[in-house]
């Protein structure tokens, strides 16, 4: 698996969520994802970027355009240095929320992508990696 290009951008405030969506859109088009998959990935990115702002106190979105044989993929990593998630299993339950949301962000994002991983510990921030392949 090769990394074709990579980059990073801050997600500190609410408006950065829009910018993260725009970057995800541009890259998913460049990656060659079909329209439905573009839409799914951008939507997942929007949920995770918002989480990083609201719950993580801001962070970064790192991106990588990948090539694996004839497939191409887009990997997005959302990382923050916030309080972390005390109970990851609980956070991955549909409808559970610690804030005022619907509790669909994390679980919904997982359903929208091909690969999903979540690393978090109390006080150690949160890192969510998603990837979608052509």
């Amino acid at each position, binding site marked *: 698996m090769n990394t074709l290009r990579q980059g990073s951008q801050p997600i500190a405030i*609410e408006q950065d969520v*829009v910018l993260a969506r725009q970057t995800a*859109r541009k890259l998913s088009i460049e990656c060659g994802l079909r329209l*439905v998959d573009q839409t799914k990935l951008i939507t997942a990115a*929007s949920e995770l970027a918002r989480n990083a702002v609201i719950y993580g106190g801001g962070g970064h979105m790192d991106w990588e355009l990948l090539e694996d044989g004839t497939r191409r993929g887009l990997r997005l990593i959302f990382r923050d240095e916030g309080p972390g998630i005390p109970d990851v299993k609980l956070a991955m339950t549909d409808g559970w929320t610690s804030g005022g949301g619907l509790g669909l*962000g994390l*679980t919904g994002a997982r*359903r*929208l992508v091909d690969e999903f991983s979540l690393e978090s510990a109390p006080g150690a921030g949160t890192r969510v990696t998603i990837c979608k392949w052509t």
Partner: protein
Amino acid sequence: MERIPILRMGEFLLVTIQVDMHDQLAMTLQDDLSERISSTGARGVLIDISALDIVDSFIGRMIATISGLSRIMDAETVVVGMQPAVAITLVELGLTLPGVITALDVERGMKLLRDRVQSR
């Protein structure tokens, strides 16, 4: 301050969302709409989302909230123009927008709105 325009057409209010909304803009629209329903006595609200290429859980919740609050203010809401890829994504995300009335395009939406308001 940035705002999404709300147009009045007879007893209906029309909203066309044409920008990539940040969360605060969505909240402002929600507040503005309830204010306009109250001040105009509108009987229906038509929200055109055909220009939106994603609807995430926040925007989805805003749409559901507008629909619910307009109902208790004696107005019907119809959401029109959802792109197929957006609909697929919303369902997979887990957001089925219960209680939100939808139509494929503005024309069908207006007809639906007229029919529903007349039958009340």
